[in-house]
């Protein structure tokens, strides 16, 4: 290798030589060359001085604390995240339970209705109109005043019950002797439950878990809270 070629190689390795990054054999070769070459020795000195100058650069300092309080800023969210996730799960279970009870109640009521008749129509059999008693009262008053004869009052008495008969709770004997299906239903509901009706009566008790929609709303709200806490903790 010519001296110029060797010089090029040494100059290329000068920084690694100064940094102690050359293999031992190569380091010996460079040291030998520097001992014999004033130009490369001068370059070596310049690079050493340059490295020292770079190392002595003043360090810029930050104006404020650079690291946000990562560990403490959102740590309080951890128990909240766990609690809200657990609560959300519990609310979902309550939603399922209350919805099951509610639908079971409706199904039971429908079943009871089918087996015992039209329970919902019972109120229609109740005595509603008061026209007949009012007519009787008016006729009596008119008879007392002499504006209407006793026959008219009697006619009114005989007609009024017939007019009120379909809706009256005290129908004439002829009508009461042939009861309508509505009257049957009312009597059945008013009567003590037979053995076969016990199930329907039991289902008439409303479920005690409350509205399923309340549980669903609570489940969604706590789930949203848990997701928010989780995202905040992840981003912290």
């Amino acid at each position, binding site marked *: 290798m010519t001296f110029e070629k060797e010089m090029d190689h040494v100059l290329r390795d000068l920084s690694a030589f100064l*940094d102690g990054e050359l293999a031992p054999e190569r380091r010996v070769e460079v040291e030998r060359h*520097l001992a014999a070459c004033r130009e490369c020795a001068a370059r070596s*000195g*310049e690079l050493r001085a*340059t490295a020292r100058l770079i190392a002595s650069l003043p360090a810029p300092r930050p104006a404020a604390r650079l*690291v946000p309080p990562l560990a403490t800023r959102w740590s309080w969210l951890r128990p909240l995240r766990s609690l809200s996730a657990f609560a959300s799960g519990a609310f979902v279970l309550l939603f399922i339970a209350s919805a099951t009870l509610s639908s079971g109640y409706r199904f039971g009521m429908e079943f009871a209705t089918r087996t015992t008749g039209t329970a919902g129509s019972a109120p229609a059999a109740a005595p509603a109109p008061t026209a007949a008693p009012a007519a009787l009262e008016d006729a009596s008053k008119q008879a007392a005043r002499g504006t209407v004869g006793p026959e008219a009052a009697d006619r009114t008495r005989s007609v009024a019950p017939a007019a009120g008969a379909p809706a009256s709770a005290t129908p004439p004997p002829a009508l009461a002797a042939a009861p309508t299906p509505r009257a049957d239903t009312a009597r059945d509901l008013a009567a003590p439950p037979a053995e076969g009706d016990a199930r329907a009566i039991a289902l008439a008790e409303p479920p005690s878990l409350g509205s399923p929609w309340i549980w669903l709303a609570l489940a969604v709200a706590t789930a949203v809270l848990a997701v928010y806490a989780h995202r905040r903790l992840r981003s912290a």
Partner: protein
Amino acid sequence: MEELLVAHADRLYAHVSRVLGHGPDAEDVVQDASVSAWRSIRSFEGTSFRAWLFRIATNRAIDVVRARRRRGELPFDPPDDDGEPQWTEPASPGPDLADLAADREAVGVVDEALRAIAPEQRAALLLRDVEGFDYAEIARITATEIGTVKSRIHRGRVAVRNALVARGWRSSGG
């Protein structure tokens, strides 16, 4: 973990600030790097937390410099090739480079020269001369080969030396 981040924050800021060539982004880069380190602490597998932290910050800083150049806020990147560096000669004799350690003007020239070189060279040179990492650590930090690190450090150092020599400083011969 937080204590470690706080302990390294000032040096990290100084390093990032120099890699960026100063400017307003250094605090943001350090904060981003700290948060990123905090989030990805599980992926830390090395033996040096400091090297890992400097890797995150250095890469972010270089990305910021490149983005600035793309936006035209900084001049075009100087070449980061593997060519041989040119050693310039002083125009006139001046003070000895070996006596410049405390010279404010020389420090200013070094700072200016560092800003003029490619960010990859600058980062490698700062990691070596200021932070004291060895070549293997710098290669891991910058995700490059040791040969590339050696070349970048040498060319960066010669570029700074040329800037000083251009101002009249000279060597006493080593």
